[in-house]
């Protein structure tokens, strides 16, 4: 009995890990990068208080943060075909996760932008810099350091949340585990196994996060 389970676990380990490496990680990396770019733009629009666009950004954040990620996935994947928009599962997941992350990270980055002492912006103007130059060279670098720990946590959350993509037929780690389970019917062992692999991924990221935080500790030590 236990020998059977051990054999199943050993055989299924690479079968689960491979989609982890080929689907879960690329999905996370792509969606997080795109989401990060969305977030920077959305945060800057609000920080600059650009009329109209700013309202559009508030609306986007309000909608995305106020609805479940699973619902967003279903609307885009199962809902949009009704109006003739068909997107393959993987790109669909990338889009939904990116847009979702964009909304959360935008708030993180906006808060960090506001924490940068304002006098530096005026000093930038006084040496002749433009607003864009000041943001790019002075304010954003400081804000991103402030935001780094929170963004790191968001990335780790996203790795785990990608399991939701199973619901729109992306054969990532969790879906693969479900399939293996339907053959062997060892739910306790197999779901613990996939949980363990997620834990490994998260642990690696947590380590990288604290290494990064140490390196970014501050601009000059007292």
């Amino acid at each position: 009995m236990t020998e059977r389970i051990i054999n199943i676990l050993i055989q299924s380990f690479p079968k689960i890990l491979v989609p982890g490496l080929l689907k879960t990680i690329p999905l996370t990396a792509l969606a997080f990068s795109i989401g990060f770019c969305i977030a920077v733009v959305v945060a800057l629009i609000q920080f600059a208080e650009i009329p109209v666009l700013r309202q559009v950004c508030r609306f986007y954040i309000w909608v995305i943060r106020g609805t479940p990620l699973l619902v967003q996935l279903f609307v885009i994947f199962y809902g949009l075909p009704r109006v003739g928009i068909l997107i393959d599962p993987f790109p669909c997941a990338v889009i939904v996760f990116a847009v979702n992350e964009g909304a959360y990270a935008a708030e993180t980055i906006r808060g960090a932008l506001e924490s940068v002492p304002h006098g530096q912006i005026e000093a930038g103007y006084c040496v002749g810099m433009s607003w864009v130059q000041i943001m790019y060279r002075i304010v954003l670098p400081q804000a991103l350091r402030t935001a780094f720990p929170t963004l790191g946590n968001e990335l780790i959350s996203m790795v785990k949340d990608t399991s939701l993509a199973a619901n729109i037929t992306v054969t990532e780690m969790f879906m693969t585990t479900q399939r293996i389970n339907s053959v062997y019917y060892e739910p306790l062992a197999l779901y613990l196994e996939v949980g363990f692999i997620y834990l490994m991924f998260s642990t690696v990221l947590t380590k990288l996060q604290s290494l990064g935080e140490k390196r970014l500790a501050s601009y000059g030590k007292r």
Partner: protein
Amino acid sequence: MPMLEIKNLRKSFDGLDVLKGISLSVEKGDVISILGPSGGGKTTFLRCVNFLEKADGGEMVFDGRHIDLARVSGREMREVRMKTGFVFQNYNLFLNKTALQNVTEGLVTARRMEKAKAESLAMAALDKVGLAERASYYPVQLSGGQQQRVAIARALVTEPEIIYFDEPTSALDPELTGEVLSVMRDLAREGQTLLVVTHEIGFARNVSSRVCFIEGGVMVESAPVEEFFGAPKEARTRAFIQAITSKEV
């Protein structure tokens, strides 16, 4: 023709008239101290002159260029700022940049100067304020007086027509004001045009060529330094001078 002329500068905040038509004329090489009680509008005046606040009315003639202060364009602002320097009470150094990078930033980014050339100019500027050996320090690693001297180097490295100072020593511990004031005195001796809001009566008396007294949003008096302290015309100026000099004891 004056290098800088401000005419009838007006500014209000939420209905409160903070500047009620201030005029000032600056010749090249002038060192002008602006004195006055707190809340009188001195900071607002400097900020309006460098467009950190938008004036409600008034004109500026700078370097032969005529500017309507209430309708100044982004381009005009940037052109004027390219030729002026500003030193804040709170230094406002770029915290993510070293002392050297603080000084090169305006050259490299705003003026597209080659990095090597900018660095050699910046080192010379840091040397002038006595901080060449602190070039690689970040602002948090510097004392207040050192930070303010870096800020002065950042303002002077672009060879501005005029440098504005807003109470450059007010945030400093008393023992650190001397190093900043002596840098400013050196600049004055070299003929750099300065416009300095200050409470340092010694600086006003010994370094400046002209002294202005602003109170209640009005330029109460503006006179050459000997006249300002020796024979002030306005009763309010006399009262103010008496109040600050009696404090000196």
